[in-house]
């Protein structure tokens, strides 16, 4: 005994899949941009909480100076150029190419200031604001990227 199975509308499904395939790279890149934007905002919010001032005692390590905090806040965490590798697209968010700033007559690289605050030094307290923001913002960024992709594909397949 045999059952006959039949599917109608293969042409429409094929056309829809073709549209998805064409749109996928642009949707993925835009979703990544949305997620990176959230990460950048999270890092900025965490940077606003950086403590400034001297250490608790004369001999102890200091916190960031107000000028260093201002430098970090003024440039914000940037979104790097997108890398496309086959079907993958990735980027990074941070201060890698954020330039230099003059503090007290000395030109200092902003990435070095950020690293000093984030990882601490022998003379400065550690305040891991980038690591903390990455942890708290990661889930939010993923959620935003997922909802963007679902919305975009929903519109295409309507």
């Amino acid at each position, binding site marked *: 005994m045999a059952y006959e199975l039949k599917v109608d509308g293969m042409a429409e499904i094929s056309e829809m899949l073709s549209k998805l395939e064409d749109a996928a790279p642009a949707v993925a890149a835009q979703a990544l941009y949305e997620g990176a934007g959230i990460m950048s905002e999270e890092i900025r919010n965490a940077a606003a909480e950086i403590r400034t001032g001297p250490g608790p*005692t004369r*001999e102890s*390590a200091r916190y960031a100076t107000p000028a260093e905090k201002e430098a970090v806040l003024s440039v914000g965490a940037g979104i790097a150029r997108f890398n496309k590798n086959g079907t993958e697209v990735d980027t990074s968010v941070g201060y890698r190419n954020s330039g230099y700033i003059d503090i007290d007559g000395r030109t200092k690289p902003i990435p070095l200031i950020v690293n000093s605050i984030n990882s*601490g*030094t*022998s003379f400065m307290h550690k305040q*891991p604001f980038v*690591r903390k923001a990455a942890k708290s913002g990661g889930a939010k960024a993923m959620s935003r990227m997922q909802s963007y992709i679902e919305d975009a594909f929903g519109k295409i397949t309507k």
Partner: protein
Amino acid sequence: MCSQYEALVAALKALTQGEAPAAVITLPMAENEWDTRPQYESYGVVALDFEADALRGDNQKVDTAYEGSVDLFSHAKDGAGWVTLITETLEAYCDGCWSLNSHVFERGTGLFHWEWTFEVV
């Protein structure tokens, strides 16, 4: 506090306070994190930085993940053997949960600075 975290920090503090059998010499530790600045050839800092994640259930936290860090400051380019001891301790107590986050040279003080981060539950 979770037992994995306590075991790891105890092991790292043992390294920095000369209680670990593997440590031939002791790695001085900065007291109260950075509140005192030890004038040693090499010294270490172990700190719990922040709560990384939490699993919730029944209106309460069932489990919590913490992110912490170990810092080594040394005038020796190779860390005077402490790099190996610290990474061995990290591997023994939380294999795969740690990474070397930063390795820089402080020109002003002449100190090399290693920073390892770890996440434990």
